[in-house]
Each structure stands twice: as C-alpha cells, then as structure tokens.
C-alpha cells in the first residue's frame, strides 16, 4: 500500500506535467495526443529509438552516478559539463597519440584516459574546497567556463584535423581516431554501443563503492557529519577531494564514451559545452536527484530523461514543434515531480499514523 502511494504520487505529478505540456501544444496549434504519441514513439518505439534513448541515457547515468557520490559526501557538483569535456579531450589526445592498436588494448587505455581527464577536472574543485575553502558551486561553474575555452582552443588549434586546414574549411574538429578506439556496436543496425553497458556497470560499481566498501563508508560519514568523521579519525579533506575526483572521473568516462561512441569517431565543437555534452552535465544532476541519489535508481531515471530528449526530436520532426517545447516540458516535469515528494511523505505519515492508531486500538 505504502509502495503504491509512493509510486502513484510522482506518476500523477508527471501526468499533471504532461497536462501542462498538452496545453502548450494546444496553444501553438498542435494536437497534444499526436504530440504525446510522437514523444513516446520517438523515445521507446522500436529498437532503433530504444537504442538511441539508451545512448542518450549513457552520459546521464555516469554523471548521475558521480553526482550521487558527490552529494552523498555533501559536495555539490555543477561541473559535470566541464568534466565530460576534460575526459573527452584526454581520450582524444591519447587515442591520437597511439598507433592503431587492436580494440582490446586500445579501448581500455583510452577509456582510462577519459577517467583520468575527468578526475583531474574534479580533483581541482575538490582540492580547492578541501584545502582552500573555495566553495565548489563557484569553482565548478567557473571551471565549466574554462573547459569550454580549452576545448575550443585545442580543437581549432593544436588538435585540428589537418585536412580541415588543407581544405580551408577549418571546422573545429580533430582527426578521425584510430579504428581500434571505436566502441563496438552491440546490436547491428542500431547505435547501441558498448558504452551503454559500461555505464550501467559503472553505476552498479558506484553502488558497491558507496555501501559495500570502507572508502564509500568514509565518504558517507563525511557527508553526514564532517565533525564526527574527523573525531573518528577519518581524513575529511582527503575524502572531500576524493568525492569530487570520483564524480569527475565518472563524468570523464562519459566524455570518453561520447567521443568513442560517436559516429564521427572524433571530437568536434560548435563552440559551446552543450554542443558536445548535450547538457548531460546538468541533466545528470536531474537524473541523479530524480533517482533519489541512489546510483541504481539513477539508471531508470536516466532512461526516462534520455527518452524525453530523444522523444523531443521526434516531436519536432512530426509536429513541426520547436524542440524548445520539449526543454520547457522537461523543466515542468522536474518541477512537478520534485514538488510531489512532500505530498508523498505527507501521505506516508498519515498512513503510518492511521496504522499506529489501529495497532494501539488493538492492544487496549
């Protein structure tokens, strides 16, 4: 019963949100029903769309799992965007520097490079917070701004594809990475690549880390009470740094997967972070919080938001509705569902109180 209510409230909230979406669709002269159909079809209709949703969910899962680690340590990480790019850049540089090795050797190396790149981008705000008291919200936002410029600099400068210079087109993109550095497609004819299971495994690993290992125990202890952790002999500063480093490394892995799983086999920029990351650094926060800051729940939650993103493209294509509507709808869904938490807990206490009364009534 309690479970049922627990699930019913956010579902109702999502429905209410879609009701608002329907109003917006009506307002711009499109059929809400067709709109919903297009979105659901675009997100989950058929293997190809499902595969795209999974691919879209992949960076959200990874960033979300990282957010879980950070938030459980009471560290806010708004730096996902920059961490993704850092990982992607180091992956790219590494892959370009290596000769064309077989995938079995190449892939672990370049994925690790992504992890390292992200870890560096996470460790910087982590260490700044721990050792210089620089608030991490400030430093992660600022580092995003730094990373976008670094990306643009590298991709239009040192890393630019020589062919682009030769042809005079000068598009800011790197050379194609060696073939060994390509994430194999798992289901032929779709975009479903190895990055998807890697992300899922990573999320499960984060779960194990947080609740089954001493390191995770220390992170959570620091998250709940730095004072008590310190008195117990846990190095709070080191663990704060660890938390952002781990979050960053997951973001970096997401960046590596974005490059290695891209059709182009290369990194390119349109000058903005979102153009490369698809805003996964932000949407991952939403997915993680939506999943109750639990790495496992972050997986379905990421699929939901991944679905919203892929569904939006279909919506635009079939109804000629600007994709902006989907972004707005996304926002409304988030707002409604987080607001429903309170309603749910109210219902829970009410029901618990009722159960209590019945129990005590039975006793006397």
């Amino acid at each position: 019963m309690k479970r049922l209510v627990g699930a019913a409230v956010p579902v109702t909230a999502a429905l209410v949100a879609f009701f608002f979406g329907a109003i917006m669709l009506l307002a711009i002269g499109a059929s809400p029903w067709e709109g919903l159909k297009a979105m659901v079809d675009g997100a989950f209709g058929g293997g190809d769309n499902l595969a795209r949703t999974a691919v879209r969910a992949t960076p959200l899962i990874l960033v979300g799992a990282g957010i879980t680690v950070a938030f459980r340590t009471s560290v806010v990480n708004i730096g996902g965007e920059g961490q993704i790019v850092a990982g992607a850049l180091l992956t790219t540089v590494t892959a370009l520097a290596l000769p064309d090795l077989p995938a079995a050797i190449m892939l672990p190396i370049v994925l690790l490079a992504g992890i390292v790149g992200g870890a560096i981008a996470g460790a910087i705000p982590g260490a700044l917070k721990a050792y210089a008291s620089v608030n991490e919200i400030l430093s992660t936002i600022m580092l995003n701004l730094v990373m976008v410029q670094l990306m643009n600099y590298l991709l239009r400068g040192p890393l630019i594809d020589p062919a682009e210079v030769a042809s005079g087109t000068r598009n800011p993109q790197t050379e194609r990475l060696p073939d060994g550095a390509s994430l194999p497609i798992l289901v032929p004819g779709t975009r479903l690549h190895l990055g998807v299971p890697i992300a899922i495994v990573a999320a499960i690993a984060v779960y194990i880390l947080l609740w089954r290992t001493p390191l995770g125990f220390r992170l959570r202890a620091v998250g709940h009470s730095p004072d008590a952790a310190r008195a117990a002999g846990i190095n709070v500063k080191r663990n704060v740094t660890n938390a952002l480093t781990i979050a960053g490394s997951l973001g970096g892995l997401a960046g590596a997967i974005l490059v290695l799983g891209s059709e182009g086999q290369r990194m390119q920029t349109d000058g903005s972070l979102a153009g490369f990351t698809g805003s996964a650094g932000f949407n991952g926060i939403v997915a993680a919080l939506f999943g109750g800051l639990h790495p496992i729940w972050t997986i379905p939650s990421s699929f939901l938001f991944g679905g919203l993103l892929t569904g939006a493209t279909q919506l635009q294509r079939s109804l000629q509705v600007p994709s902006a509507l989907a972004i707005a709808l996304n926002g409304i869904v988030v707002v409604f569902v987080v607001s429903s938490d309170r309603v749910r807990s109210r219902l829970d206490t009410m029901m618990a109180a009722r159960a209590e009364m019945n129990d005590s009534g039975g006793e006397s």
Partner: protein
Amino acid sequence: GGSDDASSEADEATEESSETGGDESGALSMAIVAPSASEDLAFTQSMIESIEALERDVELQVTDGTFVVEDAAAAIRGYAEEGVEVIVAHGTQFGASLAEIAPEFPETTFIWGTSTDTQGLPNVFAYYPAADQGGYVNGVLAAGVSESGSIGVIGPVEAGDAVAYVNGFAAGAEANGATVNIAYTGSFSDVALMAEAAQAFLANGNDVLTGSSQAVVGAVGVSREAGIPWFGTQANQSSLDPAGVVASQVYHWEVVLEEMLALRDGGTLGGEAYEINLANGGLVIEINPDYPGAADLQATVDETVAAIVDGSITTGG
C-alpha cells in the same frame, strides 16, 4: 501538415497515398536539419530562404536548433525513413552521421555542408561558401566608408567559415589602405560579449564594424547606436540597422541547389561538391538601398566582384 479536423478521414486517405505513392502533387519533398534557429539572420536562415527561393514546388520540413549531433542524426534518419526525397544536413558536424546513414538510403539525396567533399558517397552532395570572396568585397567597401581608416572585426571562435569571412574581409580592407583589428570573443552565442567587443572597437577609434555568427545582433545594436556603418554576412542583416548596414554578403544556396536537383532529376543522386561564390552568383553582395550613399557603392562592388571573378584579385581565404 495543415489537415483540418472536420475532414480528417478524407485527408488521412490522401496523406496515406501521398506517403506511399511519393510526389503525387508534384511537389518535391525536402527536409532540413540545422543546428541553429530558422530565423537566426545567419547560417540557417540563409539555407531556408534559399530553399524557399527554389523555382520548383517544394514541401519543406524543418528540424532546427539541433545542436546535439545525436539528435540531428536521429532527425536525418527519421526523414529518410519517412521517404523524404532530399534531405539537407546543414552543419559540418553532421558529416560523420551522414556517412553512416546515407548508404542505408541509396534512393535519398543528402545535401551536406559546409564541406568541400562528399566523403565519396554517391548520394551526397556537398556545398561550401567561398565566404572570403564576399568578405573581400565587404572589406573593400568598408575601407572606402571608413574615415579613421580603422575597422573592427568581431568573430566568435576562430574556426569554420567565420575565419574565411574575417580573413577575406581583412584582405580586402587592408588592400585598400585600412587597418583591420580582429577580436574573437570565444563564443558563438554570447550576444552581450559581442556587443561589448563592438564597444571596445569604438573606444579605439574604429569607425566601421563587421562580424560573423548569430550572436552579432548585439554588436549591430552598438554600431546602430553609434551611427557607424556595419557590414553583414550570411544573411541580409539590413533589418537590424536599416540606416547603418551598408551591405551584406548573402548566401544564395539556391544556385547550387538547383544544379544538384537537376542532377537528381537526371538520376544522379549525389557525388558532387559545390561552392557558392561570386562567380556563380551564390554569393551576392546586397547593398542596403536605405544606406545613404548606397548608389555610389554599386560600382565598387561590380568592379571588385569582376576582379575576383577573373582572378586578378585573390582573396586569400
């Protein structure tokens, strides 16, 4: 679209037949997938207007604002699956996806740019603007209208055809004795930063400005307020400053689109790369008739264009 609820059944029937039977109405079905908005007064708008200017009956579907490549790829594939005959992938970054998709739909023509080659795909046409040429002409005009001899150029990120335009412009202006100062703001989308870059140029005595990317709208506002001349590129930007925009280099893709579609009519679905330039009329310097003294400029334009076309001037993109 455009189907009315009242007569839905009848419409559905015709729609179905049109989907299966192809272009019953005679209209060519086309779609465009573009990274920025259709009305960006720049890159995307230029292509939409060009398609609308085609001399044949086209039914156009638009997916714009898809700056995420995965989304664009999905849209391109979606249109192909729907049976759209000609799909314009309006963004260099979509090339890799196209390399995957195009072979799967050998009956469909894909038009992709900006790029100078078709990646060897038989059903892909490529297009590229020789933006340096129009830039050069703009530069020549700018040197002519500048009194201080200092001209400011605002770029987004030093990449892509922004560089071609900026370099061409600089070459043209410098060849005519002006000093050209160039600043890249580091962003394609920061309107406020471009506006302040314009202010910085004004403070340094530059009395003519130009710039590239959809974020220039703020900079045009600054030049409008200062009452100084502005040169536009990609689309006709006169609407932003009816009295101050001197001329715009406008991309008339229809010139090459017509050629591509003609080839398609003849059974060749792709395989050629096209450049729009001054010679083929794909690049046009549109002088703003409301600009005081517009009439005197046409001669300079014609002269310079002719010199570029006959090769006596190289624009050095």
